[in-house]
């Protein structure tokens, strides 16, 4: 999902300094160029820092004439890659409405909307139409696939192959390879479904296996049920 990874030593020096600036002297217009460079570095090195990017968005808010919409777009793409964290919304809160009306931002907001509402097919269709935006950031596809798998893992114990395929936008032989890899390293189990095709058993967690949760859930009060029955007819 685009979180921090190991970086080569010299580049680590630069990031360390920027992170320090953000921690120690964030309300300083002079660090704006450093923060912009840092965004570009996050893109090319596939690292991520929400705090630094929020700091930059704030500075843009303080001095709108210095705002670079290209940098803002990159920040938003990185934020999208951080899902399920709400980073995309957090960034939008700091971006003026008139900027959000620009075409590239409207597209990003639509992409975010699809991801927030589990509409993966529509997401991949739209992303394919906006290659120039999303291809500019390496690791985008993988990050979204990781998010898709995350939500699927919350929801499914067993998931039909076509549903998975649509969510992560991988099909055919590539999907076979992907599934083999996950079965070998990720604890996935591949089953044969009753004549309908493959079923994938996702790893157990407390969200798709509630018995693994520590606290007991409450039972439904009687009034709830009596209210429902008229609807069922």
């Amino acid at each position, binding site marked *: 999902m685009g*979180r921090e990874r190991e970086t080569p030593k010299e580049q680590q020096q630069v990031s360390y300094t920027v992170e320090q600036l953000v921690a120690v002297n*964030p*309300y*300083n*217009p002079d660090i704006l160029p450093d923060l912009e460079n840092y965004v570009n570095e996050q893109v090319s090195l596939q690292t991520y820092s*929400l*705090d630094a990017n*929020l*700091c930059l*968005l*704030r500075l843009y*808010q*303080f*001095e*709108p004439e210095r705002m670079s919409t290209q940098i803002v777009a990159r920040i938003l793409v990185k934020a999208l890659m951080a899902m*399920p*964290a*709400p980073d995309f*919304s*957090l960034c*939008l*809160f*700091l971006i*003026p*409405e008139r900027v959000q009306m620009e075409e590239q931002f409207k597209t990003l907001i639509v992409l975010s*909307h699809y991801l*927030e*509402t*589990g*509409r*993966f*097919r529509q997401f991949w269709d739209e992303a394919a139409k906006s290659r120039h935006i999303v291809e500019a950031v390496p690791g985008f596809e993988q990050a979204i696939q990781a998010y898709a798998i995350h*939500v*699927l893992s*919350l*929801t*499914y*114990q*067993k*998931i*039909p192959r076509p*549903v998975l395929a649509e969510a992560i936008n991988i099909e055919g032989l590539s999907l076979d390879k992907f599934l083999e890899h996950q079965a070998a390293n990720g604890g996935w189990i591949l089953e044969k*479904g009753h004549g309908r095709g493959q*079923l994938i058993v996702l790893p157990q967690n*407390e*969200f*798709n*296996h*509630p018995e693994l*949760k520590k606290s*007991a*859930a*409450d*039972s*439904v009060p*009687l009034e*709830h*049920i009596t209210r*429902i029955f008229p609807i*069922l007819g």
Partner: protein
Amino acid sequence: MATNYDYEEAPATYDEAHRQDLGYDPNFVPDSVKSLVVHLYRHIREKNVYEIHQMYEISFQTLSDRLFKDTPWPSVDAVAHFVDNDQVFCLLYREMWFRHIYARLSPTLKQRIDSWDNYCSLFQVVLHSVVNMQLPNQWLWDMVDEFVYQFQSFCQYRAKMKNKTEQEIALLRQYDQAWNVYGVLNYLQAFVEKSNIIQILEQEKEGLEQFTATDGYDYSGGSNVLKVLGYFSMVGLLRVHCLLGDYQTGLKCLLPIDISQQGVYTSVIGSHITTIYHYGFANLMLRRYVDAIREFNKMLLYIYKTKQYHQKSPQYEQILKKNEQMYALLAICLSLCPQVKLVEETVNSQLREKYGEKMARMQRYDDEAFAIYDELFSYACPKFITPSAPSFEEPLVNYNQDAYRLQLKLFLYEVKQQQLLSGVRTFLKVYSTISLGKLANYMEVDDPTLRTILLTYKHKTHAVDSEGKVISNADVDFYIDDLQIQMAYTSNFGLTSG
């Protein structure tokens, strides 16, 4: 869009300033005022914190009510010679002088600018020289609180360019540094750093420091001013960041304060409420509904039990206002995240009384529901600001509502995304298990749509906390086994199998 957001402040034109001056002689010092400043000055020099607090809380208010209902206090120049022309005392007096203007009258632009200058001078003294005073926490909190309030007020004022006079525009251009956002943030940050408060709180946990135990007061002959200002500045920073729409950073600024415990922030009711109100609001915008509900619940219960003790206090009206706003925010949180068991009985019954009907309507997610979300949000939200300087080019516009409009829009957008969840929640509560096909039928959607609804439900009810961990706040949960939905519990009320 709801209209009750309008920032209530009478425009301070030249006539207003003139009216302020009618019958007001800045050099006339009534005996009671002379007595007050002389005694206050002495108590400050002698570090009699209790007496200072009495004079600050009570005497000052009483005199304001009696003698200065709609005029300013005597000018600082008129009282200076009663207090040895003490620089620090005069700065403190001036701070209260301006606060009185904001509270009872309407500040002119010049007064706003002069107040900023006064804060700069006062803060410079505290930050860069050795201040040997002990002031009551109430006073120190009021200073930080007022500082942020005047900043917010100035941004609102400045954003209404449409009816500005030429004089006002000239002044704004000339004093473009007054109340600039960098200055405000950097002063608060400077207090936090110079006071070393974060390290002090850390070391207190290890028993190496005393701060909370003494309510921030220094019993070894030193001063509490810098430390406590540093402490309250963390709350100040939370507040400013919320006004800017940066909730994540706001919460980060508050992190050194452990709100699961009592602390110096609870030593002053205003500070306690401001902290929790903004903490809750920020968590609401971060979709951490459970955290928001927990804290609002605790705070509202506390206010319910203790508000009678504050009836005579000048903060009483503010306490009541924030109380009502937090009920509105709680109603919103519970409509988006029905976890009623987190709410204490007393608070719940108050909530039902105030918002029971509205909450029922909000959970229907139709157009009327959105209107109610809009209404409650607009009523309860902070007074968001646009921090950048205005454009002085024609045509002059009012942009004071822009920040609020954006936050509201994004909030309602989130509500809209959660629209489909209410319906599915109802069904999930009734069945212990049901096939995807049957549920899709009942909900009158096709299979793929149902799958996306269920994914949305899972995503929206599983928030990411501050450490990146996924936490479920779902009141009813399920998992899907191929084509079958299984609920996360079995009930003994004879639930149906779909």
